């Protein structure tokens, strides 16, 4: 047994240590390929939103149904996107159901093969896939595959102060009237502003899209950049004038989180943003305009009223998940007709047509808002940002002229520059899509 007593050489010892460490790391990194034990929870990652909170409250009912524990993690949109990037780049199996923004992440996630194909699963008659509104349903399909199921939809609403707008003859029906009314009501010295809205380069793009469509433009026209068109330029100039002339200071640093409190604190007359946030203005803890807030459809521009109507949040299944059947059961339950109706009755706007035609589910919304939502959904365009792989970069390019306008600079040269950059970007993005 001389071999066993021979000491290891330095090199052999190093190799052994490296192999042991490597094996340890690999076993830690790999999730294993077998089916997880019955104790392993179904892991759901979701946005911290009223929809997720309402589902979380009911999740015990689902746990009893499938006989497995459910673990729900609620994060902000940025945290959620960052987590997906990290986990899925490592082919992580520690998330099963993913709440995604169909218009922001789905194309890229689909390109990366991170989302499971749900085409066969949604064909289940009981699930009633046809019941989903057209625009959200279309947004769920990438390269002919259904990759997500919409659960929350969103349109822009015009929030206004009833007490101030009375003397103007009611809420503005056109963008021209909105501009005029906002200017008339602005009293900068008193810290009161005619209009408040998103002004951040990237964050403002989705809300600005309704202004763009209502001026007759679009982000991409016939596969080419549409942001240099006269219609888009007019929309840029309009939005810049509106916020520069009637908006609060620091508008270019404002996303929803900064703009909403200004309206809620009674410091602005008009606010255009997602209809899903209306409850913030009715909550006495955060709102001073509870009695005076009014709701109206998005005003008409030169090309009519064309607000967006989009699936803001959808559910998908991680392609690396080892609990895909259970994950689908969760989607079937959480996005099913019964749950959609129950949640809409709590004031959370869903994606199924049946719940919008049911007067019972609309009773949760203030009547004026329900009417505005119905009208906006009818007129709605199914996207609120460029439909490209790299949505983040596209929004950064498209948003530059918006910032120039809000800062009171000349918009046209910036539009020309951004248009050229966006055209180059689209070529590169198409190349990525084809790769």
């Amino acid at each position, binding site marked *: 047994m001389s071999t066993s*007593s021979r*000491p*290891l050489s*330095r090199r052999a*010892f*190093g190799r052994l*240590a*490296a192999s042991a*460490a490597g094996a340890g*790391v690999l076993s830690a990194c790999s999730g294993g390929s077998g089916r997880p034990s019955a104790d392993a929870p179904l892991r759901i990652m979701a946005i911290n939103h009223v929809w997720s909170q309402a589902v979380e409250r009911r999740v015990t009912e689902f746990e009893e149904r499938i006989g497995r524990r459910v673990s729900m993690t609620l994060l902000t949109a*940025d945290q959620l*996107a*960052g987590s997906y*990037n990290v986990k*899925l*780049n*490592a*082919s992580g199996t520690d998330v099963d159901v993913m709440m995604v923004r169909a218009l922001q992440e789905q194309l*890229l996630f689909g*390109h*990366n*093969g*991170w989302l499971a194909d749900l085409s066969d699963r949604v064909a289940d008659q009981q699930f009633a896939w046809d019941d989903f509104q057209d625009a959200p349903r279309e947004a769920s399909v990438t390269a002919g595959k259904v990759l997500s199921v919409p659960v929350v939809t969103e349109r822009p609403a015009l929030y206004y102060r009833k007490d101030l707008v009375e003397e103007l003859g009611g809420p503005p029906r056109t963008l021209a009237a909105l501009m005029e009314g906002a200017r008339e009501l602005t009293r900068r010295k008193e*810290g009161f502003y005619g209009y408040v809205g998103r*002004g*951040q*380069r*990237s*964050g403002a793009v989705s809300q600005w899209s309704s202004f763009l469509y209502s001026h007759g433009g679009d982000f991409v026209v016939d596969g080419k950049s549409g942001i240099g068109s006269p219609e888009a330029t007019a929309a840029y100039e309009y939005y810049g004038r509106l916020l520069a002339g009637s908006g*609060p*200071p*620091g*508008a*270019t*640093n*404002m*996303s929803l989180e*900064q703009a909403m*409190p*200004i309206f809620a*604190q009674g*410091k602005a007359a008009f606010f255009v943003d997602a209809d899903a946030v209306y409850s913030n203005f009715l909550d006495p803890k955060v709102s001073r305009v509870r009695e005076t807030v009014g709701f109206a459809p998005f005003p008409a521009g030169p090309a009519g009223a064309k607000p967006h109507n989009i699936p803001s949040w959808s559910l998908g299944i991680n392609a690396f998940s080892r609990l895909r059947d259970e994950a689908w059961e969760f989607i079937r339950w959480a996005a099913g007709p019964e749950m959609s109706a129950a949640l809409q009755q709590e004031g959370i706007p869903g994606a199924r047509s049946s719940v919008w035609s049911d007067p019972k589910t609309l009773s949760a919304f203030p009547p004026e808002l329900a009417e505005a939502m119905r009208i906006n959904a009818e007129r709605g365009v199914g996207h609120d940002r460029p439909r490209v*792989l*790299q949505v*983040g*970069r596209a929004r*950064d390019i498209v*948003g530059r002229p918006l*910032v120039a306008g*809000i*800062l009171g600079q000349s918009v046209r040269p910036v539009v020309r520059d951004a248009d050229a950059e966006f055209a180059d970007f689209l070529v590169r993005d198409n190349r*990525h899509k084809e*790769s």
Partner: protein
Amino acid sequence: MPATRTTGTAGAARTPSPARPATGRRRRTFEQANRRLKWAMLTPAVVFVGLMIVFPLVFTLDLSLTDAFGAVNADSSPIGLRNFGDALGDTRRFWPAARRTLVFTVGAVVLETVLGLALAMLMRKPFTGMRWVRTVLIIPLLATPVAIGILWLLILDPTNGIANHLLEAVGVPRQEFLGSVGQSLPTLMLVDVWQWTPMMTLLLLAGLATLPEEPEEAALVDGANAWQRFRYVVLPMLGPTLATALVLRAVDALKTFDILYATKGAGGGSDFEVETLNVYAYGLTFDYQEYGSAAAVLVLFTLFIIGVVVLLRRRGGRKNA
């Protein structure tokens, strides 16, 4: 390990007795195991450094030479140094970000050093309430940068923030602070100064405590005033501590990310007004999924940091020589 060496030498000098082969073999095994002990003790640290530092560095370097996009594990092609060329030729984002990184670091660190030194000189001699003052001084150091960012975002909100109410109360016009393209970077430099000046103060106080008193007393006897004693006696003696504090703080300031991201979001604001190289690389990775380009920017950024450290150390070394 002298003990091991002694045993080893003794073992080599002595020939094992053929009458007791088992004992001799056991001793030899023990000695050899002892000799390998240093490797066994070192291995966890070597493996840790390899996995956590060397591997990411090599991986980043490798990634920077590819066109990796979308997912890190997706197919990518080697493209040589093209990502580096693209970054160095990018006058829209890369070079402005490099300039802002430098402006932020130099501005913040200079102010922190001057204020930190002034506070350290004031607190050098014992005074009533000194312990209380020192406790208060370290509070900003204990808070997390993201919490500090959100706190200042609320304080400096142009419409609802308390800062503008206070300014108005004393007759100063309202400011946009972080809402302004022009004011954002200086405002964030001041927030950084507010957070990190105490660290400079504490480091310099520690340095001052080690200085001998005799040279200062001799200067006093020779008729030097307070400024002359500080400029020609204290400051040169404090040089090594000052140089170390400067390098530590400068490297940290160069890498600032959290406070910028928490207050201005992705891209460092609407006009990229606070986008530093760190924020830019983060955006390339997490917002644009351009992993190859992001890795190239990070490699260049690392070289930039090493350059700054070498420069500061050389200057510090020359002054102290």
